[in-house]
C-alpha cells in the first residue's frame, strides 16, 4: 500500500502518508483515505517523508483534499518534504495554501 492512513484516538487528526511516487496512479487510494471516514477530522497532516516524486496530478489531489476539508477553512499541513518535493511545492506557490515543512 503506498497510501497509509492513521487517525488519532480522539478522531480529530488524520495523518495520510504517501510512499514512493505521488502521481496519478495514487488517485483512487488517496481519495479513499479521507472520503469515507465516519468523523470528519479537524486537522489533516500529509506526510511525504517517503514520497520520492510529486507531479501536477499530486498537486491536484492536494487541492481536492483541501476542498473536501473545507477549502479556506481547512487545516492541512504537508510535512517531511524532501528538498526536491519542497522545490516543486515552492514553484507552484502551494505554500500559500498549505502549511509546508
Amino acid at each position, binding site marked *: 500500500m503506498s497510501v497509509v492512513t492513521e487517525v488519532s484516538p480522539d478522531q480529530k487528526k488524520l495523518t495520510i502518508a504517501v510512499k514512493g511516487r505521488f502521481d496519478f496512479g495514487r488517485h483512487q487510494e488517496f481519495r479513499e483515505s479521507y472520503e469515507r471516514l465516519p468523523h470528519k477530522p479537524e486537522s489533516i497532516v500529509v506526510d511525504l517523508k517517503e514520497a520520492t516524486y510529486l507531479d501536477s496530478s499530486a498537486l*491536484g489531489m492536494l*487541492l481536492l483534499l483541501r476542498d473536501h476539508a473545507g477549502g479556506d477553512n481547512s487545516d492541512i499541513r504537508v510535512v517531511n518534504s524532501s528538498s526536491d518535493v519542497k522545490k516543486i511545492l515552492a514553484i507552484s506557490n502551494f505554500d500559500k495554501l498549505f502549511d509546508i515543512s
Partner: protein
Amino acid sequence: MQAQEPLTILIAEDSAADRLLLSTIVRRQGHQVLTAANGAEAVECFQQQQPDLVLMDALMPVMDGFEAARQIKALAGEALVPIIFLTSLTESEALARCLEAGGDDFLAKPYNQVILAAKIKAMDRLRRLQATVLQQRDLIAKHHDYLLNEQRVAKAVFDKVAHSGCLSAPNIRYLQSPYALFNGDLLLAAYTPAGDMHVMLGDFTGHGLPAAVGAMPLAEVFYGMTAKGYGLAETLREMNAKLKRILPVDMFCCATLLSLSFQSRSVEVWNGGMPDGYLHRMASGERVPLPARHLPLGILSAQAFDDRTDVYPMAVDDRVFLLSDGVIDTCDANDQLFGVERLQQVFSANREPDRLFEDIEQALRDFRGQARDDVSMVEVSLLESAQAHGAAPVYSDSGQSCPLDWSASFEFRGATLRRFNPLPFLLQLLLEVHGLRAQSGALYSVLAELYSNGLEHGVLGLDSSLKRDAAGFARYYEMRAARLEALQDGFVRVHLQVQPQGEGGRLVIRVEDSGKGFDVARVMERPVDNVRLSGRGIGLVRQLGRNASWSDQGRSASVEFFWEIEA
C-alpha cells in the same frame, strides 16, 4: 450447474464401431454430430460445417489426427475450436504429440461417458471465453479509434483558437513541440490596441483532451480582452475566474504572462507556478530571473486572487525567455534531472544570443541521449516601436448608422480608480464612430497615456523621474501599488466630444485630474529623449494626436483627432 448448450461436434475416427459408439454417446448428451472416417474428411467437414468442437482419433489413414488438427487450427484462426484427441496411446511422448499438434485435451479408450461430458463442458467454456475476449478486443479497438478521432477534432478546433494570435510577429521566437497540445502547453501572443504585446506561456494539468478543453476558453479570454485594450491584471483576473468556475477542483493552469510595451520600454510579468523565466539584458549580459510568485490560474477564488505584477525596464534588443517545465524535468538514463543549474550553464556558455534555442536543445539531447518532444520555449525581444505594429481589428457591422454628433463625460472617483480600468470601455465607445477606427491604435495609446498620467502623476502624486534606472523602476511600481491601495479621494475625468466637420469629423478628448499639476512650460522645453525611460508620454500625445495642450496648471489635458470619409 448450468445445462450444457447443444453444440455441433465433429467426430473423426476410423474405426466404424468406435465411431458409432461415440456418436451415440455424444448425441445422447444433446449435441449435433458430424462424422469423418479419416483426417482429410475431417478437415473438409470442418471447412464446410464449422463445428464448435472436434473429437479426433490420433491414428487414422489418409491423414492422421495430428496433421488434421494442425490444419483445422489454422483454418479456425483467432477463434478457439477445441480438439479432444481420442487415443489409447499410453506413452507420454505420444501424448505430447497431441498437445504439440494443437490438441487441447485427450480422451482415453475405452470411452467413459461421464468423463467425456465433463471434458466437452470444460472445453466449451474455454471456447466461449475466447469468443468473449475477441469481441471485447474488437470493441476496445473501435472505441480507441473514436477517441483518437475526437482528439484530432479537438486539436483542429484548438489550433484555430490558439493560433489566431501574433506568434509570427518579428520579435517573437518560439519552439513548440509537436506534442505540446497533448502535454497541456499553451502559447499565445496578441497585440493590444496601443501596439503593446501580451504573451502567455501556459501549462495545464493533464494531457490530451482535458488540457485542450481547458485551454480553449482561456485562449478566448486572452485574445478578446487583449484586443479590447485590457491590461494584464484584468485579463488575469478574468482568466482565473473562468478557470475556477469551469474546471474541476484538481485542474489548474500554470502560466507566465508578459506585457511588453515598446512605447514605455518595459515588460510587465506575472508568473503563477511556471519555472523561472529570464530577462536577458544585452548591454550587461545579465539574466534577471522571473520567478513564480503566484499560484497557478484556476485555484483561488476571485477575492483571493493576486493580480500583482512585476515591472522591469527593457532596452531595445533585450529579450525575455520563457520555458515550460519539460526542459528542467528532462531525465537521463539514471533518472537524474537536467535541472536549473545545467540550464544556467547553457546560458553562460551561449555566445550567440540568436542560437540560444539550439544550444538548449543540443544540451538536452546530449544529456538525455535523444531529443524531447514535449518542450515549449519562447523568446520575446523588444524592438523599436516602428517595427512593431498591430493588425487592425475586424468589424462586422455595415457602418450605415454611426453616432457623429455627441459628447459624453465620465468621472472616476476614489475607490473606483483602484479597481476599474475604463480604457477598454472608452475605446469601444469611440470605435462606434467608423471614421475613427483606422486610428484605434493611436487613440488608445493617447487615451491610455493621458489617463495613466492623470492617475499616477496627478491623483497618486508619483514622480516619473524615479523611473530612470532599474531600481527606481521597481520602486516606482511598488509605490504605485501601495498608494493605489490606500486611495480614498481624488478623481480623473474624461470628456469626449465628437462633431461632424466637412466630409469627416473631429474628436476632442479632455482628461482632468484632481492632482497638484506640473510646470507645463518646463516639461515642454525638454528635448524628446528616446533613451531615458521616463517623460516620453507628453511627446507621444503630441505626436499621435493634434493640437495637444495642457491647462489648469497641467491638471487638464486636451487633444484632438480628425478623420476624412474616404470616397
